[in-house]
């Protein structure tokens, strides 16, 4: 079963404190996560996937000092995994499209790690009030599009467009930062 960001982070922090059991629990939980991450992205053999999983576990272990305890664990993990995959492809001289870490977090089901990475409020403040409200309602407060539309007194498609444009503006701002 896939573990949550919160649980993985607790194990990671335990391992950083020198707790063998927490470290083992973390690596055991990461193996299937990494396995599905690589299998979905590489057409290569099962052996390649297995090698990458092991290399990544070793990287997670030896390069733990590069993790910032204040930030989400899964964002760090997938940035490491993404690098390992790029390195693997470079060695094989293959090319496949590779998403940003933000997109990886979404497709691997760790959206909650995204929000904490960013100073959400200050980013929202750079948008128009309508876009900021639409994003806050639907992505932070968990309203449905219909609820957000009624609350703001605008149409549903207007909410969707506001969310889409707002997120796009934020994304380009982060990349430019």
């Amino acid at each position, binding site marked *: 079963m896939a573990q949550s960001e919160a649980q993985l982070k607790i194990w990671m922090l335990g391992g950083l404190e020198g*707790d063998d059991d927490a470290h083992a629990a973390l690596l055991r939980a990461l*193996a299937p996560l990494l396995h599905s991450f690589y299998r979905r992205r590489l057409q290569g053999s099962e052996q390649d996937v297995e090698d990458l999983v092991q290399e990544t576990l070793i990287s997670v272990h030896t390069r733990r000092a*590069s993790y910032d305890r204040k930030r989400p664990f899964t964002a760090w993990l997938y*940035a490491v995994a993404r690098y390992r995959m790029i390195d693997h492809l470079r060695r094989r001289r293959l090319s496949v499209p590779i998403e940003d870490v933000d997109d990886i977090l979404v497709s691997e089901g760790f959206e909650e790690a995204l929000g904490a990475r960013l100073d959400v409020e200050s980013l929202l403040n750079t948008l128009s009030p309508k876009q900021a409200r639409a994003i806050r309602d639907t992505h932070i407060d968990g309203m449905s599009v219909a609820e957000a539309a009624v609350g703001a007194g605008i149409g549903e498609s207007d909410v969707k467009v506001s969310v889409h444009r707002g997120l796009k503006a934020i994304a380009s701002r982060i990349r430019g930062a």
Partner: protein
Amino acid sequence: MMNTQQLIASLSKNVPRVAPHALARRIGFGIAAGCLVTAVLVTAVLGVRLDLRVAMQGFSFWMKWTYSISLGVGTAYAVAQLARPIPGSLRGLWLLAIPMLVVAGVGIHELASTPRGGWLALWFGRSWMICPWLVLTLAAPIFVGLLWSFRKLAPTRLRLAGAAAGLAAGAWAATIYCLHCPETSAIFVITWYSLGMLLAAGAGAVIGPRLMRW
């Protein structure tokens, strides 16, 4: 290769503790160790300038040190950001414009108070031809120290990290080179010291991706 469960078991035996500021400490240690080697090279090969004690009471020595040390601190910060797989923000680096503008301002003031005929002497000093190359050479041990730091860190933008490491190594090398270099003008420093640091940054960007791969 062993199977994954065996690997996990072997990695989880006697897991060492990682201190909260391990990353900053490791980068600091890499730079310090490299600086030590560079300092030995400067004293043993180039020699410390004989009037160092007097010079340390003067303006130009501290102007040079303020310049190179502030760049050294700023670029070490950049290296620390780039040592994480998701680099932190580098926005604070605009602060480095301050020492550069200050030294440039001092340089302009020097030029204004020197007759035109003396400008070239002010700019080129006596060592402009070797100064950048010495800074580049003296940066090598510090760059190697940073490569050691990176061995347990996880840079993912290797060319940028290499350039930052080169620049940091160059800035600290320039700081130590001040113990030897007798030049005094600000315009000399902002031209030839900076050129040496840029050469180091360029070298770092070229060799970084190869040496920092993990």
